């Protein structure tokens, strides 16, 4: 028994798939940018000496790292609207869930990056009379951010994969489109194969770019003080 592959129905529906891809990028982009900002806030809270800041931040970070993303998404989409009385569209639920989730991971990357800057830099900054905030802003963070770029790119690529979960709450991303097209054309094999390859192409390219950037950063030299 040989199966006759036929990709034409899939390609006939390419607009559906293209829209899906766009929506995937939309969710990823939103979650990335919100996550970065929120992640920095969380990291600074986590590093602060005030327990009112570091404990809640620590709790949020731990919570989002020890629960499965799909459970978070479902809770956000089904439970949260009832709790706070807001109408949640699939996009909103996805954006909120993945922003906070990315933030939890980015917070740890920020923290590791900041802590990796050697103590001597703090000394140098404080010795000329800088406050903690000035030292952080002018001296430590700029150096930390450069080191964190590889980890950020890794997380960003992870995020592109995690956002496929939004198909489960009927957000029209690429995977959801795959579902639709597969049911429409009765060609699940071709549809899912094509979609898998599209995801692979996009994400593989992104990770190649990330690796190229990482090499470029490494070559430009981690300037050491000694």
């Amino acid at each position, binding site marked *: 028994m040989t199966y006759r592959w036929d990709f034409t129905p899939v390609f006939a529906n390419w607009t559906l798939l293209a829209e899906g891809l766009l929506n995937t990028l939309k969710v990823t982009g939103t979650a990335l940018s919100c996550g970065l900002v929120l992640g920095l806030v969380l990291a600074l809270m986590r590093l602060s000496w005030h327990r009112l800041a570091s404990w809640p931040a620590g709790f949020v970070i731990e919570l989002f790292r020890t629960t499965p993303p799909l459970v978070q998404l479902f809770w956000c989409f089904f439970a949260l609207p009832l709790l706070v009385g807001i109408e949640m569209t699939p996009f909103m639920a996805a954006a909120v869930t993945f922003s906070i989730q990315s933030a939890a991971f980015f917070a740890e990357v920020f923290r590791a990056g900041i802590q990796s800057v050697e103590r*001597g*830099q703090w*000394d*140098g*900054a*404080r*010795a*000329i*009379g*800088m*406050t*903690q905030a*000035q030292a952080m802003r*002018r*001296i430590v963070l*700029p*150096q930390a951010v*450069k080191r964190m770029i590889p980890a950020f790119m890794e997380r960003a690529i992870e995020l592109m994969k995690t956002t496929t979960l939004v198909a489960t709450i009927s957000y029209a991303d690429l995977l959801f489109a795959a579902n639709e097209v597969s049911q429409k054309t009765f060609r699940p094999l071709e549809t899912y194969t094509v979609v898998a390859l599209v995801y692979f192409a996009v994400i593989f390219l992104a990770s190649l770019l990330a690796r190229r950037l990482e090499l470029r950063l490494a070559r430009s*030299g981690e*300037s*050491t*003080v*000694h």
Partner: protein
Amino acid sequence: MTLLKVENLAKRFGSNAVLRGLSLAVARGERIAILGASGSGKSTLLRCLNFMEMPDAGSVTLDGQMIGRRESELVKVRQRIGMVFQQFNLFPHMTAVGNVMEGLRTVRRFGKAEARARAEKELARVGLADKAETYPAHLSGGQKQRVAIARALAMDPELLLFDEPTSALDPELVGEVLTAIRSLAEEGRTMLLVTHELGFAYHVATRVIFLADGTIHEQGTPDEVLKYPKKERTQSFLARHKEFSL
């Protein structure tokens, strides 16, 4: 005229009492060399003076005013006391002139042009005017330390603290840094210098202090301490450093 007065300074790290009731008075224009074995508390003493370490007990008085513990006050005190570190601690993401300007811009709130002009002047003073746009990664150890000195000088400190400024340098680079420090000495600046360069200490210092067990074991003029030490521990310390000929 007393610029700095230290009374009964005490500091411990865990179970290790590094400073035990150390008292010291520094007059304007004095140049004090601080010697001692490793672990004797030399660096800790220096770092307590600008409160980079918090003393457990004792007081530090600058120009008649006792220094409190609040960060807002300490930030201002550190503008008046300059510190040069063994490991330079230059900011690698800024050029040499950027490093020197940083304090002026961020802490003293100078305008960009004003800060730059002043920074270039300080770099010229340590002989590095041509390296202004160079990043620390491309500077030699001696050059890095001179930039660090320029950075400290840019803040117009009343007191300079040198924490083993040449210990991390290759021998052939030590000289240029000592020359820079010597020119500051000739200007009459008040300084405390923790060093192992005994010859330099002998020629530049007005007073030499030998630390042991967290207090001042012996102090006096360079001749008194380095040439004719009275106490036994001072003598054995100096004997161990015989390779630095006077």
